[in-house]
């Protein structure tokens, strides 16, 4: 694990507090989408297909902060759309850092260097740039359907690391990924000086342009086993080792759909970041009036059967870490030995 100790402690104490209060459903990471607009149209993305009047809209900083306060999660992830297209991204991040929220700014990196040169962001232990990297040059440029994006993102990573920012990568893998190439990719990212890497299989969005390459559950386990067996010591993952073991098929988890709630221009998305079954007006309404029993693999919901995405299962892994001695022991063991 490569999460800094202070951040780990912030999350751990938050989870323990929820458990002491007897809360069974609590959020870990708020997915805050201030806009849907993006400067890429990736093959595996089902997020940005909206009419122009919707793509032009964005949340105000005040609306974002109200959602952050309402939700109370210790970590705020800002995906999108492309958050660096949000005109008030600097002010939003400053306000979140002032609230001592751990921020993961999920960007494709195309505008990052420019924003850093403009001084939009200041290094902070609360701020991490999570750069979208779907593999080495050839794989990444194809995944985002544009040549040159990998090189631009690498340049941005170098620049951000050089300026003292925390930088992580976020990788989505699809059917046909080569385990060998992915391992080479991990080496490359470590060489760039990233703090940690996040990996996940893609969610099979029905609206994504490429419908052929979404991984089914057994293929996911096969692929991640091949990639993560015998992990190199120098690889650092910004994820729970139990979640990585789940991806490898070593653990059987059920989804925790309320673990990463999503707020965007439409409100609070039901039930999760990936599935869109409607919107609630408040976080409380989302938590109390969503038919949670309709989601997750055991529900029989066809849209959940092959999903193994981090936003649904990382909270399950974290819950196991702090909910059982065995889970805690396994996490500590994997963290200390580096074995998955």
């Amino acid at each position, binding site marked *: 694990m490569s999460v800094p100790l202070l951040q780990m402690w912030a999350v751990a104490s938050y989870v323990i507090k929820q458990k002491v209060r007897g809360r069974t459903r609590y959020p870990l990471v708020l997915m805050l989408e201030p806009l849907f607009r993006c400067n890429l149209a990736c093959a595996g993305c089902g997020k940005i*297909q*909206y009419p122009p*009047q919707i793509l*032009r809209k964005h949340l105000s900083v005040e609306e974002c902060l109200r959602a952050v306060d309402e939700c109370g999660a210790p970590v705020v992830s800002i995906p999108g759309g492309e958050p660096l297209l949000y005109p008030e991204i600097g002010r939003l991040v400053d306000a979140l850092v002032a609230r001592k929220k751990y921020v993961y700014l999920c960007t494709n990196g195309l505008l990052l260097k420019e924003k850093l040169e403009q001084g939009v962001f200041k290094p902070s232990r609360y701020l991490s740039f999570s750069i979208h990297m779907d593999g080495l040059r050839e*794989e990444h440029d*194809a995944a985002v359907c544009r040549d040159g994006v990998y090189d631009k993102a690498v340049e941005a990573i170098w620049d951000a690391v050089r300026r003292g920012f925390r930088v992580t990568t976020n990788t989505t893998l699809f059917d046909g990924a080569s385990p060998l190439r992915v391992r080479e990719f991990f080496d490359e990212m470590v060489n760039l000086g990233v703090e940690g890497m996040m990996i996940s299989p893609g969610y099979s969005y029905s609206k994504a342009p490429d419908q052929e390459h979404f991984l089914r559950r057994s293929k996911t386990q096969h692929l991640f086993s091949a990639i993560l067996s015998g992990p190199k010591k120098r690889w650092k993952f910004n994820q729970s080792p139990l979640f990585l073991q789940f991806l490898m098929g070593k653990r059987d988890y059920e989804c925790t759909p309320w673990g990463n709630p999503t707020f965007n221009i*439409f409100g609070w998305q039901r039930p999760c970041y990936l599935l869109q079954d*409607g*919107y609630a007006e408040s976080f409380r309404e989302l938590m109390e009036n969503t038919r949670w029993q309709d989601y997750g693999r055991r529900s029989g919901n066809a849209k959940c059967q092959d999903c193994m995405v981090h936003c649904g299962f990382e909270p399950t892994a974290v819950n196991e870490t702090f909910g059982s001695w065995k889970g805690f022991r396994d996490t500590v063991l994997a963290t200390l030995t580096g074995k998955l």
Partner: protein
Amino acid sequence: MSLQGWVPEPGDSLTLAEVIDLAFDYRGNTTIVRVDGTEVEGYIFNRDRDVPEPFIQMFDLAGNGPFTIRYSEIRNVKFTGRDMAADNSWTAWLEAKGKGAADGRHGKEPE
């Protein structure tokens, strides 16, 4: 298959609630035909049929809203806007790169 251009005819075989569900899932603007004959065009982003008075929520073409309209006020929904999910960047990429890109995209190892 895209529903773009479809003008459904709600009735016994296809209920209005089912048409609204399809419109909610549609990634393009639609035109709501009210029972009084007036029409409003925009993007339906929410619907709830599990409440005493089922409703939809939408933004109009100018992005104003959200407007809430009860099912009981709706006669039909026409799929008038362009289907944004059918705007296929992936197909364009494949065409630009040649067919080999489909495998190359994901780094498939040579057989």
